[in-house]
């Protein structure tokens, strides 16, 4: 558990810093920071499982990189809160785009990560 927590510490640090950078680079209501970490995190999980093997991966490595880093780097709570906020603000087009892009590109990113390793 502690190993996972350590991975989560670093993943969360990365997510926070990405969010700060995204706020500076992108204006507008599309939640760029959360979107970027979620898609990149999905890509990374594909890479890691591609490198070590989903079923062959050592428990400690899995705890650190998958449960820990990828789990800390990505977020479902902010994604859900972002959606609620967009809906309450009546920004239905942005909400729909955000939802569909996150889900579709998230899945594609996992496959792409695994395909990169081959």
């Amino acid at each position, binding site marked *: *558990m*502690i190993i*996972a*927590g*350590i*991975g*989560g*510490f*670093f*993943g*969360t*640090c990365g*997510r*926070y*810093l990405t*969010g*700060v950078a995204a706020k500076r680079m992108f204006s507008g209501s599309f939640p760029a920071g959360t979107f970027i970490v*979620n898609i990149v*995190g*999905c890509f*990374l*999980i*594909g890479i890691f*499982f591609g490198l070590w093997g*989903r079923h062959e991966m050592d428990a400690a490595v899995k*705890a650190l990189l*998958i*449960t*820990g880093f*990828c*789990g*800390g*780097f*990505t*977020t*479902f*709570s*902010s*994604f*859900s*809160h972002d*959606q*609620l906020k967009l*809906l309450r603000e009546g920004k239905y087009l942005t909400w729909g785009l955000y*939802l569909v892009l*996150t*889900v579709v590109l*998230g*899945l594609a*990113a*996992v*496959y792409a990560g695994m395909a990169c390793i081959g």
Partner: protein
Amino acid sequence: MNWIKATIIAGAGGFVGTCMRFLSEKFGAAVYGGAFPLGTFIANILGCLLIGIFYGWASNRAWFNKKWNLFLITGLCGGFTTFSSLSDECTSLIDAGNDATFWLYLLASLVLGVLAVAAGIAMVPKKPAGETA
């Protein structure tokens, strides 16, 4: 507060949240052996409920400052929930041909996630201005 301190506070919350998710995944696997990723699902929905409560506090409690925001929202909720595991579990279900569980898991996560945030916000009593301590 400088950015290094802010990052560490967020990271510390993420450490706690990730430990909680680790335990949730263990619990889920222990009580249910089917294909539905129960551990991740519980962590994600509970995490959404918590983020709603914390945002409720953020908007209506004077004591909820930037440090609490970093630790609880960016940190704990962000660490407790995960999008990468959700996506990976979905690809596993798709690859196994388990379309029914894939759709159930995806849609239940998305819908209940947003509803849980709203429920969390609604759970926080709104104090009048001047009484937000």
